[in-house]
């Protein structure tokens, strides 16, 4: 490896310390020769799943901290969101009824066309 001089022209030559974690993980977990050991640690079964899950969860946490909460307001993902949608529709209908009863149908229709 030390006699490979590929540094000019093409990007990186990662030493052990600089290569990115995703690249290392995909090699040390998925590749390399698999020989039966004495102690059974079936990484392929447990780990990639765990890692991906973890990383996903942490990105959801990050999103929540940033105030993005799509999974809470998307009706497909949350029953609470479905209730929200119902409540909102309810409120709009009440508002519309009130407007009609006040004889102000014109503005209601205009608002609807605009919506």
């Amino acid at each position, binding site marked *: 490896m030390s006699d490979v001089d590929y540094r000019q022209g093409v990007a990186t030559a990662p030493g052990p310390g600089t290569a*990115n974690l995703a690249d290392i993980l995909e090699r040390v977990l998925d590749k390399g020769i698999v020989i039966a050991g004495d102690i059974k*640690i079936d990484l392929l079964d447990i780990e990639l799943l765990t890692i991906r899950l973890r990383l996903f969860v942490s990105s959801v946490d990050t999103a929540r901290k940033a105030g993005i909460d799509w999974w809470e307001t998307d009706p497909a993902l949350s029953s609470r969101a479905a209730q929200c949608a119902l409540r909102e529709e309810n409120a709009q209908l009440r508002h519309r009824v009130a407007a009609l009863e006040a004889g102000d149908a014109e503005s209601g229709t205009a608002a609807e066309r605009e919506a």
Partner: protein
Amino acid sequence: MTGFADRGAAPDSTVTYAFAVCRGEDASGAPLPPGLSAGAPVRALRFGALTAIVQEVPAADFTEEVWRRRLSDRAEVERCARAHHAVVTAVARFRPTVPLALCTLYRDDWRAIEALGRDEARFAEVLDRVAGHVEWGVKVYVRPEEHASGPDGATGATPRPAPGAAARGSAGGPAPGAGRAYLAERRERQRSRVRRHEETLRDADVVDTTLRGLASAARRLQPQHQELTGDPRPQILNAAYLVAQERTAELSAAVTALRRRVGAHIEVTGPWVPYSFAGEV
């Protein structure tokens, strides 16, 4: 590592962790990295005509239960993966080396010699295949403009034409063709998105085909998830090429030419110990 200790195993018992297998009678020539445990050094262990690179590690730190917990701790996973990788890389600097998968463990040295010895022919075959070669990782990312535009186009929130603007030139109401013009624009945007997508896939094929021509062997790996890479651009090609060391300059020139030829972004990593070519062909 102490935080992960398992109560089940005796506190002072050790197991033999195997990192790699290489040719040669000894692995001297370079100081080896510290490995996975502070207790004992990384060392060479002869079996038959080959040498395993091993380390005694505390048994309590290497049970399935401990690893299950460890693998959900990103910092721990990173520490272990890098420690394993550092040893493999250091050994391979001076001789053809077959990396073993993370967590290949034996009850003791004798068991390691016995078990690895049974696969001596297989190791020899892989060592022949990778000798004089290195692995290069090549990734192709979606063209920037494709990624920048969401499903609705560049801004993502294209406002409907304001009534006043749409009606400019006519008297009062919306211009007659405004709706159709809007739909035509949407269609055109959709078409160009599909076009860019196809171009990107073609880029990936051109890159892969060209580099396969230079390689002794090639593998397409699973494209990496954005959560794992931290890169916002989707990856459309993640490949590994086993390239003879004397063809390194050729590979370099080919990548330079490809970068000029295709619109997609090409990332090259390496040289790697040929991890991706250690298993079955």
